[in-house]
């Protein structure tokens, strides 16, 4: 297992390097001249030329790429903001936890509510509970999360004044700042989760081993939870990685609405003010985060499904298992 984790971590290196190169290449096509953006419209021609030299913008493309890559992956330096001159890496360390917190909260709501809904729908197939869950799921997928966010703000912040509409707080009191953002970000994933769970459960419930469990005298509740749900979780976990990516992306818009100073507001703000090093560094960092989460999801997958675990086991072990069988 450890060997597998190690292998996956090594696999991540070319992916992350690829992402960094891709993002760097894309950013060179951005409109505007960097020195102009840094120094502003009032800068003289001489000042601009000096800045160009300082940034090394006239060097060949490969040299600039190599310099950036070594900065990022050897010195762990993403450079400084063009406009505020603040170190990007330290800004990211400050902001990333908030984005992660929002994303994880969104994921927890989606799975925590979506899976039970799907289970209910499946065991009450074709009854009113099923129809209700599926209608909710359809609506959940259809409602855009930024619109839902606005509606929730309107209801719970403007009208009822129960929850804050923007910003972040500290400590336990800070949680309430994440409630509306997490709920509004979760509907699509929640609905997806419910639908996936339902169809997985319906497949599993008809499986022979469920009949076996019943024939053993297992109470119906345990048939569902112990025997059926664990098997249904397998397809759900496979989509969880993708879901995490969607939530991470969705969090960027949600952050803008609720003015949460996370990665989303950071990157989107930078796009609007043409502070490209931030876009570049932020994207690379988020891609790395995403890759780590995919790895975690893969490991979860192995935990639930012993067949996958066996594949992860080292070559030697696998052979032994085969011989025994």
């Amino acid at each position, binding site marked *: 297992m450890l060997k597998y984790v190690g292998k996956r971590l090594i696999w991540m290196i*070319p*992916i*992350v390097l*690829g*992402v960094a190169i*891709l*993002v760097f290449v*894309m*950013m060179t*096509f*951005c*409109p505007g001249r960097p020195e102009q953006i840094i120094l502003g419209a009032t800068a003289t021609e001489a000042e601009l030329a000096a800045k160009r030299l300082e940034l090394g913008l006239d060097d060949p493309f490969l040299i600039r790429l190599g310099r950036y890559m070594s900065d990022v992956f050897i010195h762990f330096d993403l450079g400084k903001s063009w406009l505020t001159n603040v170190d990007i890496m330290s800004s990211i360390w400050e902001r990333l936890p908030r984005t992660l917190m929002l994303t994880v909260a969104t994921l927890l709501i989606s799975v925590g509510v979506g899976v039970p809904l799907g289970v209910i729908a499946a065991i009450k*197939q074709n009854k009113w509970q099923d129809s209700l869950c599926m209608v909710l799921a*359809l*609506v959940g*997928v*259809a*409602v*855009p*999360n*930024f*619109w*839902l966010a*606005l*509606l929730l*703000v*309107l209801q719970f912040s*403007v009208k009822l004044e129960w929850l804050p509409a923007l910003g972040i707080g500290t400590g336990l009191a800070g949680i309430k700042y994440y409630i509306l953002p997490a709920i509004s970000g979760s509907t699509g994933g929640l609905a997806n989760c419910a639908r996936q769970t*339902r*169809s997985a459960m*319906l*497949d599993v419930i008809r499986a022979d081993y469920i009949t076996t469990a019943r024939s053993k005298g297992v109470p119906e509740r345990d048939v569902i939870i112990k025997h059926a749900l664990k098997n249904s979780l397998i397809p759900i976990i496979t989509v969880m990685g993708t879901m995490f*990516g*969607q939530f*991470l*992306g*969705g969090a*960027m*818009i949600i952050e*803008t*609405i609720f003015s949460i100073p996370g990665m989303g507001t950071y*990157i*989107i703000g930078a*796009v*609007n003010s043409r502070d*490209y090093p931030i*876009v570049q560094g932020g*994207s690379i960092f*988020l*891609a790395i985060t*995403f*890759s780590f989460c995919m790895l975690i999801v893969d490991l979860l997958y192995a935990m639930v499904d012993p067949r996958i675990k066996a594949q992860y086991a080292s070559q030697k072990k696998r052979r032994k298992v085969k011989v025994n069988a």
Partner: protein
Amino acid sequence: MPKTIEKAKKQSEFVRIIKQMSKNKMAMLGLAILSAEIILAILSPYIIPYDYSHMDMVNTFAKPSFQHPFGCDDMGRDIFSRILYGARYSISIGIIAVGIGTFFGCTIGATAGYFGGQVDNVIMRFLDVIQAIPGMLLMIVISAVLGPGYFNTIIALSIGSISGMARLLRAQMLKERENEYIEAAQSINCSKFRIIVSHLLPNCISPMIVSATMGVAQTITVAAGLSFIGLGVQPPTPEWGAMLSAARQFIRQAPHLVYFPGLAIAVTVLALNLLGDGLRDALDPKLKN
């Protein structure tokens, strides 16, 4: 003689799918809503009660009324007219972007599936890199490069949907390749190209159609999201996301500005999803529960 048999078989398959679809009330509802929206969008310049950009300062923030069913915005523009006209932008972005994305995605996916080996390897590693960037972030980066605007948004969104489509087609082809009818075709000495075009692709097409339908729905939402954060279509263009973005600052004074554009997105996406579900059930009975 064999040709007529083939024709009859093909037609009956097509008829079967249509029949299956027409039995599915939800899918028909989706289709009806969608067709109505598209027709209204095409006809909108002739049927909207007010010009979508006509400002009328007397009616600033007017509440929904008989004259203005959805009310008016901060410039006194009729929201009903703007939403109908805006459907042209929102729906066309979704359809065109997915169309382009599907075309290139299928080409890339089929190339990877056809050549296999090193070509497949290179393509897949490149797609791995793209997929390591969360979708919305990729859109944001691409729009940062291209700048905002209708056509740039379409390009950004189509680039974004290529990798998913390519992966789907390739995976589907690899899965179908395992089937015994491919072995049967090989055993009667079918050429590789023929196997791909006349045996593999037709069997891979169903999930692509379903995925594309769902993709249009998703793309409409993402496009609106991009416009909402100011990176897609820009106000005063009446694209729904842009309208929401503009309405946001008036949420306290005039909440109705927020209701209707969002509702328009939700209804369109719902209709597309209903249609996609129906298509999936009709095209691939195996997937139906």
